[in-house]
């Protein structure tokens, strides 16, 4: 483990930036967002960013391929360029887990090469949450915000940042930072971890459990009468999906450019009415079915295909951002009738 004084963070980012682009959460209008570090950029203290970190590997829009057409003839042009190495600094435990969840989708056969390319070039430097918020419920999914995963795991105290490399990628990066950091005992951050754990214990959603859900529960929950009342005020917007670190549905669209056609993919939302619409029909006719799909996917379908791992990381973004304040916590409580605050 290595450490650096909090007051010297700039030198750390500068040293990282020598070999790679460094992105980190920065405070701005309405919350924190990931930004490229340049001289003078200040790390946000916010517990999380407004948008999740999935953008780095699964951006909101991404060009897939271009076409040139002449008469009846057609050319397919691969316009991809090699991505540069980059560092995402300050990723919270929940978002780090979200990468695993996305990996299982995009890196499962057949591999999504666009995602893979970005994923391989990213080094994840995670940061334990000193002040988890009331909307946080990562513990429900077995995530420990005091000990996130990542290539390098960091803990921040009032005056010091501790860095612990966990992977080969992380060790390589940490080795390049030896000039600005100094070695310290592996137990140096233990006190901070304990403090965070004591805070996690006091969170209002601490007792929420997902035990009732799982891959074999389709029959149990699909026809639950609660879906009707849970979804009745849903506006059918895509806020929850777009701020969600694990939502990965996308659309593929064509755009006629000045000299051809560009095919790109962009985020899509199962909450949108035209998401499954075909010229032949529409399997999810009302918002109830669309709403159900989103939560069934996180709590039942995803675990069914991924050894019981849930598709939610408890980051709390949908709790904070839904226009009508309907969210997965309310859904889990109402459907499961469990997860009492006091257990």
């Amino acid at each position, binding site marked *: 483990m290595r450490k650096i004084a909090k007051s010297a963070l700039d030198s750390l980012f500068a040293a990282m930036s020598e070999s790679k682009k460094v992105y980190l959460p920065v405070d701005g209008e309405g919350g924190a967002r990931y930004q490229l570090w340049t001289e003078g950029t200040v790390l946000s203290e916010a517990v999380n960013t407004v948008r999740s970190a999935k953008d780095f590997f699964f951006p909101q829009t991404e060009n897939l391929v271009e076409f040139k057409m002449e008469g009846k003839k057609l050319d397919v042009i691969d316009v991809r360029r090699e991505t540069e190495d980059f560092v995402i600094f300050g990723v919270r435990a929940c978002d780090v887990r979200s990468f695993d969840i996305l990996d299982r989708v995009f890196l499962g056969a057949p591999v999504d090469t666009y995602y893979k390319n970005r994923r391989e070039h990213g080094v994840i430097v995670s940061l334990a949450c000193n002040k988890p918020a009331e909307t946080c419920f990562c513990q429900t999914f077995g995530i420990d915000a005091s000990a996130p995963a990542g290539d390098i795991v960091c803990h921040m105290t009032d005056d010091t940042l501790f860095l612990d490399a966990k992977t080969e990628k992380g060790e390589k990066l940490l080795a390049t930072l030896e000039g600005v950091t100094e070695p310290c005992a592996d137990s140096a951050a233990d006190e901070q971890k304990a403090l965070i754990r004591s805070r996690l214990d006091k969170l209002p959603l601490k007792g929420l459990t997902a035990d009732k859900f799982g891959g074999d529960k389709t029959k149990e929950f699909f026809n639950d009468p609660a879906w009707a009342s849970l979804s009745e005020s849903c506006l059918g917007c895509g806020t929850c999906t777009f701020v969600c670190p694990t939502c990965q549905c996308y659309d593929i669209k064509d755009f006629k450019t000045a000299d051809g056609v560009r095919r790109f993919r962009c985020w899509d939302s199962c909450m949108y009415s035209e998401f499954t619409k075909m010229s032949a029909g529409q399997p999810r006719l009302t918002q109830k079915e669309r709403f159900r799909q989103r939560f069934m996917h996180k709590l039942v379908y995803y675990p069914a295909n991924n050894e019981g791992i849930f598709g939610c990381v408890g980051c709390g973004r949908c709790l904070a951002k839904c226009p009508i304040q309907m*969210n997965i916590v309310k859904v889990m409580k109402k459907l499961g009738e469990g997860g009492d605050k006091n257990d």
Partner: protein
Amino acid sequence: MQKVTRDILVNKAKELLANGTVDRVYGWKKGEFAYDVTPALFKSEKELDEFVFGDFCGANVSKYLVAESKKAGGKILVFLKPCDTYSLNQLTTEHRVDREKIYAVGIPCEGMLTGSALKDKVDSVLSVETEGDTVKVETLYDGVKTFPASDLLPDRCRNCKSKKHVTYDELIGEDGEVLDSGRFDEVEKLEKMTPDERFAFWQGELSRCIRCNACRDVCPACTCEKCVFDNPKSGLENKAAADSFEEKMFHIIRAFHVAGRCTDCGECSRVCPQHIPLHLLNRKFIKDMNTFYGEYQAGEVVGNRPPVVNYTKEDIEPSEAVKRGE
């Protein structure tokens, strides 16, 4: 803060359900925290146990009436804040709701807090209490913080345009007056900037847009069966903006499409997960229409003709309109 209490509303709802005036009630349900109440439909007296009312019930439920009033059954009871009544009137004007199916009870409003505006100021909110115009917020890490309500209220409430109910079947409490608000101050501030400054301002704001469509889906004026932005045949369809042009396109066209029909309820800005001050686009149109064509408030009277679908022979020329700022 609110002068009317939950019990008054629940008793009113129970009374109207019992005497058969209405058969369902649009209200709010409690959430996990102080601020996350959800609009919900209540169909029986028993269900009303979950009914809540308080300083976070800011959602304009008028939009739900578009679908709800088309359903079979009796009348729907809604409790409308003064600003919501403008939306209902406008929807009635546009024949989007069946007014006969709605039983509107006007309730006074002292300004509504919103979770997002609150969380801009305070982290990790455990509970919120209001006493008069003071808001006490209990937090996880910073103890109890006290604010004057005006510090936490969103723009739409700080610059409330009217405390008057323009439509209701019944009123709880006293009716208020149309207010002389400073709601165009921000617009004027922008108008006084140079074009470069304005462009930089809007570029910064709109570039944050994630095209979640929350502004559109919550807007009581956006009631098209199929939005042009969802329709592949419109030539405007787009989902996630693939170029910064598309964000501008979406917001300009959306604002234009609701111009003259937008009652300035401010829901668009309330729901924006990216805190884009979308109401400043709508207010620009409202302000321009007022200046060019005379004072007009959408939803004030049922049947009013919005200025965009009207004209006089003496109207200002477009070239003159844009010159005013100089």
